[in-house]
């Protein structure tokens, strides 16, 4: 057990440091000081991601379950979700510059994780369910996607003020569309999170919906992105307004993740 915890602590610290280096490299890359660092930044991120995965595996083996059950574990997984979303997007579209805005978010989440207790505690009876893996696993993907969309939206907002030569992504329409596509994935995953949570709550607590602050804030986040989708698809809402909406939506995601736990009493209070 201690061996795994030591390994987890070491890999966590290494991951954190590598992500900071990676973010700095990406920022140098997009600032235009030198354009040669793109590949190095991607490789650095990939190495950091491997260490991150190592920390997740060590936690999983040490705790005897997936790292999904408290704020530290979820933040660790959330950070992993952000980085894998970025790497997948880069793999498909080759837009590495996004890393300059996504990696700082991953660092922020990992920093939050580092402030939480890392003690391995047994699962309380209500959490002993297969739904935990599915519910929290999809939450990681959803939150990761929203973080990524937020990063892309920030790029759009910066690019929209710059001349064509100085833009991070040559065509702002691409970042606008990418942000939309990533949000689409995020909202589908968020829907699965809410539905799987409802089915689980019906099994554990007898009610599929009880207006608990955590589930209610998930619904609020869902409503925000639903408004975004409708304005975009039906009113052709693009550009700056859509980008600000993506940033605003991610703030709601962060509040659902962190704010609700700190400020509002909830039956999800085990997630502290």
């Amino acid at each position, binding site marked *: 057990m201690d061996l795994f915890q030591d390994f987890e602590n070491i890999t966590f610290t290494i991951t954190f440091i590598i992500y900071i280096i990676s973010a700095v490299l990406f920022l140098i890359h997009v600032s235009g000081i030198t354009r040669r660092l793109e590949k190095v930044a991607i490789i650095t991120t990939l190495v950091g991601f491997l260490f991150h995965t190592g920390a997740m595996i060590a936690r999983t083996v040490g705790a005897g379950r997936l790292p999904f059950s408290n704020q530290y574990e979820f933040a660790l997984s959330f950070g992993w979700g952000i980085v894998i979303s970025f790497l997948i997007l880069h793999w498909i579209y080759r837009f590495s510059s996004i890393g300059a805005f996504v990696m700082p978010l991953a660092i922020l989440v990992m920093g939050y994780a580092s402030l939480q207790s890392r003690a391995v505690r047994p699962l309380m009876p209500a959490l002993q369910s297969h739904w935990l893996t599915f519910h929290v696993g999809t939450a990681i993907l959803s939150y990761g996607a929203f973080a990524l969309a937020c990063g892309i939206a920030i790029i759009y907002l910066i690019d929209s003020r710059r001349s064509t030569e100085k833009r991070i992504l040559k065509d702002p329409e691409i970042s606008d569309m990418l942000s939309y596509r990533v949000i689409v994935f995020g909202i589908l995953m968020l829907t699965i999170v809410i539905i799987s949570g409802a089915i689980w709550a019906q099994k554990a607590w007898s009610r599929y919906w009880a207006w608990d602050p955590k589930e209610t804030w998930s619904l609020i986040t869902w*409503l925000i992105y639903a408004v975004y989708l409708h304005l975009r698809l039906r009113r052709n809402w693009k550009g700056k307004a859509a980008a600000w909406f993506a940033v605003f939506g991610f703030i709601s995601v962060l509040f659902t993740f962190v704010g609700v736990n700190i400020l509002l009493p909830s039956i999800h209070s085990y997630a502290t």
Partner: protein
Amino acid sequence: MNKHLSKVVRTIASLQVAIMLLILIASYVVIGTLIPQHSAPNWYLEAYPAIGETIVVLSLDHAYSSPIFIVLVLLFAINLTACTMLSLRGQLKQTKPDYFPGFTHEDQIITDVPEEDAIDFCTKKHFAIHQDHGESGFRASRFRWGVLGAAITHLGILILFVGGVIGNMMASEDVVSMLPGNEVSYPEEGFVIRLDDFHMTFEEEGAVKQYISDVTLIDDDGTETQHTLWVNNPLSHKGKTFYQASFGWTGNLKMTDTETEEVVIEGLLRSGRTYFHQPSHLTVYLYDYYPEMAIGHEQQPVSLSNREVNPYYAVVLYQFGEPIGSYMIAPGDPIIFENLSITFTHSVAYTGLLVRSDPSYPVVLIGFIIILIGMFVSFYCYPRFIRYHAGTVTTASGKNGWVFHHGVKQFLAKHDQQQNKE
């Protein structure tokens, strides 16, 4: 349709109204999470002197069942129904094989594409190819039915609303506390539930790992079936679902006459309850039970866990309503009062089962499934159209145009590279 009526319907079904309602619902829900719910009206007046009255008047103390919230949700349901119905006709037209959009987007053109490559793309990606009459080239389409994704999602949400209404009107809930051997009868459903055993399992450091109730269901025809319930493993039978919800302790109270050694009374007394002994006007109050007793920071007894490793009972005696003594006693320790010896011999845990009947759940599940299908269709099976004419491929795919165009372009570029290599 009457012109004015048509205008009213279009307004009700409009996106502006939908967005406005969504924002209002979200805002109301946010307020509901910020204000503690279901407290007494006076509490709000004291806790929020400036806005307490407004909270009570606007029913924000029970935000999610308040008339304002119900009206907002109802209006949204009407808006959603009207919007879906009005859009459906046009969407159904778009699913017909002869429908093609205008290929007008200038950015979505790929030039210098051999016809074989374009056909190869369409074949490999399962596009239906339509030859253009009187023109060279062709048009192709895939996922025409994907245009119905939004309508399917809306239908799922409406089914959820229906489920919610059914749940509010027909769901019932009750909590039963049962000691081993206790039975609860459900004559309308035609069965009896009996608790055979209740126990807890523990983690190494003492936290409860699981609460487990062994029960027997006895149907009216005499059929007996045994089941085990625990948290996350409820039991459903004839419309009732039993959930492992809580537990509590009872102490076995034994009062003995010290002179005759005759047992005056013996039975289980719940923690927090009293027993009144009429002949001596004595009330025995089992204040609390501490399975693993320790002394806390404030010199108060606390229980470290629910494992019975150091059990103690906190007992208060009253006579004629006046307290006459309080005691911390271990199982079997006697309290002597006049000619009575009062002991708690052992403890028995009782189970708390939440019994719920909710006919809305299957409806809600159907709603969930339909919403997921609708969203998946909307996001990933959106209609894709291609026109090939004179060496030029033009793509069209509504609001997802760039993504589809990017995919076609990548495919054709790879295809070209492969051919060059060969």
